[in-house]
């Protein structure tokens, strides 16, 4: 582990894995989401292989990549939402989520600056200095835990945001007009 070949494989698999995950979330049709899901499982299995967990990689690929994807395929066929378009929350929520995602990415990748030596201006440097002599990984545990806590906080906030929602949707508007005509 740790050779340049492994580094190359890691970056390739990681980018493809993130692309697959983004495809699951934001693909316009359900069949595209299912294909992205399959590729995400495939590349996560390859990542497991890099982490000396070949058994788990095969196990996940067979159990999830083949069995679960087939099950999802048949369910989507059965309930005829195979070509269902992407229905997501309103644009305000999505923009807010993208903003939060960028914020977390910045917070998480702050620590990358340590590897390249240009870390004097980072506020997180203070935490690393204090924790380096205690536990080696507490420096990045800070950023990771901060990102996770902020993500959970924003998830709660997103779930509780009351938007313009039902009254502006066309089907509800039609129902409203119908009830007024009656």
């Amino acid at each position, binding site marked *: 582990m740790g050779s340049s070949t492994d580094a190359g494989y890691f970056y390739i698999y990681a980018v493809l894995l993130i692309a697959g995950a983004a495809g699951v979330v934001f693909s316009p049709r359900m069949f595209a989401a299912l294909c992205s899901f399959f590729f995400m499982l495939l590349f996560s299995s390859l990542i497991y292989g890099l*982490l000396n967990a070949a058994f788990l990689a095969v196990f996940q690929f067979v159990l999830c990549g083949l069995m679960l994807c087939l099950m*999802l395929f048949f369910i989507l066929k059965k309930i005829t939402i195979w070509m269902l378009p992407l229905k997501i929350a309103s644009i305000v929520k999505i923009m807010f989520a993208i903003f939060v995602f960028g914020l977390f990415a910045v917070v*998480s990748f702050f620590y990358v600056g340590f590897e390249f030596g240009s870390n004097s201006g980072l506020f997180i440097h203070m935490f690393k200095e204090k924790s380096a002599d205690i536990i080696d990984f507490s420096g990045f545990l800070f950023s990771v835990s901060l990102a996770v806590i902020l993500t959970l906080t924003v998830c709660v906030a997103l779930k509780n945001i009351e938007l313009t929602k039902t009254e502006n949707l066309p089907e509800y508007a039609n129902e409203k007009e119908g009830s007024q005509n009656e």
Partner: protein
Amino acid sequence: MNSIGLFHYLILAVILFITGMIGACVSRNMIRIVMSLFIVSVSVIINFLSFGAYGSGLNSGANVMSVFVLVVTILQISAVLALFLKVYHSNEYLDVEKIKDKEN
């Protein structure tokens, strides 16, 4: 840059976790929400395995824990999909907000 360490895997796990949680929050289709939650569990498994691989003597324990997490997730998804079929047969849609409005 050429050597991959624990930090790289943790960053990958964080990105996957955030993507999965955002997907679970902004999606309205139940099946897509389940897929997003599976992304979260993949990030947890990567966390376990990376600490096992780069930690001190925890590799077998991390593998066992990861298999446990994976099996529990699969069982959970199977049960949830069965529930979704039931919901679909009674409502003819799997839109979370429509179901919520119908209940109200």
